[in-house]
């Protein structure tokens, strides 16, 4: 029996997810042993043509990481969808848009202008911008076009499974792969991570007070944090209660609050709205001005609550942006 063919592909991503695959360490050998890797641009040399040449459905599973942010990425997503029996959104960007989808708060033109013209580090006298096509010596080169809206994978193609995390930990990756290869694969659309919020596995849960009430919010650098006490009880915005567990609470263990990379549980449609609801309800203040003063401690609610999930939030994008 031939080994199942698998593909790893990356779109708008930082490469961290690829690292995780490598971080499987010696287990990677097991993977290679059981699977036939047919595409992995970050590690091996394949061409598009190789993939296009495959029959539809020839790949058993594709783990695609990164958000979809350009015409090329969209094309590849479609291509791989066609060629794969199972398409897995791997990592926060593919699952929810990830950090790249924070760009949904800006118009494309704003971003291009800043990056190619206005950023303090840019020296670009003629204000050159990337061209979509370019002709030199009779050869025509095409570049992919950056899309206006950053999307999660499932906003572009049909997705079978989601493995969240920025990046997904080797552990859940291993578990997920095992589940996929097992006899009873999970139902389509599943998120291959626990459906309970992070607090359950957080070492700081022990001794968390039952009368949480916020008089102020602090950012981690503004205070000397108690390494054992619940971060929320110290006034630090921790998204743990609104975020799936499965990571082993590594950030809180490292004295940093959870920033929400595993996304919401299946019962929640909008992670940001839910953490906002919970944090605010527990404020101490009663009058609007006092409330506002406390909430000034969260200077950028969008960036804080949708750090990894703007694309999959209910609003998806800053709504007053047209065209650009």
């Amino acid at each position, binding site marked *: 029996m031939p080994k199942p063919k698998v593909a790893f592909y990356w779109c708008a991503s930082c490469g961290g997810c690829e690292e995780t695959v490598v971080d499987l360490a010696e287990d990677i050998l097991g993977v290679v042993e059981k699977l036939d890797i047919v595409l992995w641009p970050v590690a091996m040399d394949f061409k598009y043509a190789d993939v296009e040449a495959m029959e539809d459905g020839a790949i058993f599973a594709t783990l695609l990481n990164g958000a979809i942010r350009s*015409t090329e990425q*969209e*094309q590849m997503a*479609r291509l791989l*969808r066609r060629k794969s029996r199972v398409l897995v959104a791997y990592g926060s960007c593919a699952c929810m848009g990830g950090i790249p989808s924070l760009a949904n*708060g800006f118009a494309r033109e704003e971003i291009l202008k800043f990056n190619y013209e206005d950023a303090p580090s840019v020296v670009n006298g003629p204000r050159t911008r990337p061209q979509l096509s370019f002709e030199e010596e009779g050869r025509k080169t095409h570049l992919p076009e950056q*899309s*206006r*809206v950053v999307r999660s994978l*499932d*906003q*572009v*193609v*049909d997705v079978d499974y989601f493995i969240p995390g920025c990046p997904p930990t080797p552990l859940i990756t291993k578990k997920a792969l095992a589940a996929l290869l097992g006899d009873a694969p999970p139902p389509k659309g599943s998120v291959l991570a626990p459906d309970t919020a992070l607090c359950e596995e957080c070492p700081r849960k022990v001794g968390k007070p039952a009368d949480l009430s916020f008089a102020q919010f602090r950012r981690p650098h503004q205070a000397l944090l108690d390494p054992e006490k619940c971060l929320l009880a110290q006034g630090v915005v921790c998204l743990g209660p609104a975020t799936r567990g499965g990571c082993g609470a590594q950030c809180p263990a490292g004295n940093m609050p959870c920033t929400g990379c595993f996304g919401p549980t299946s019962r*929640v*449609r*909008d992670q*940001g*709205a*839910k953490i*906002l*609801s919970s*944090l*605010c*309800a527990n*404020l101490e*203040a*009663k009058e*609007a001005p006092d*409330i*506002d003063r406390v*909430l000034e401690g*969260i200077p*950028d*609610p*969008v960036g804080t*609550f949708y750090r990894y999930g703007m694309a999959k*939030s*209910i*609003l*998806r*994008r*800053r*709504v*007053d*942006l*047209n065209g650009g």
Partner: protein
Amino acid sequence: MNPTDKAAAAGTGTPPAAEWTPRIVAFFCNWCTYTAADLAGVSRLKYSPNVRVIRLMCSGRVDPQFILDALSKGADGVLIGGCHPGDCHYVEGNYKMLRRFRLLRRMLSDMGIEPERVRLEWISAAEGDKVKLVINEMSAQLSALGPLNLPGKAKGWDAELTAEREAVHA
């Protein structure tokens, strides 16, 4: 944003301008504001017919997801009605809503939604006339702002996807 931009922002799927009236989804608490709306009815006060009331037991039940969901599904504005501070049937549910509201408004404005589109009002069971007043006022305000039309906008955003795309946004 200038007026022409506003019209452009409305995107596709908008009815002709003459026919458009704003749609308001209202979440009213059972004890004060819903009862006030009943009183407005019993008193035969007349107000703009573009509001749809959803009854909850307390304004504290209003999950910010409801507000976002209503906006994304085509509401031009969301009105939340609760008991006056100190009068909540459940002691302090209205304060909890007020706190969410303060941050939500800020967040919405960061997301390009005019703060006037989401409104929190304290309306006691006796204030039928306030129901009328607030709805009419909000209706006028939203008319002035123009359509939010998030479903239409989302369609517009997705027009950049290649034509052969699968239907994934049902």
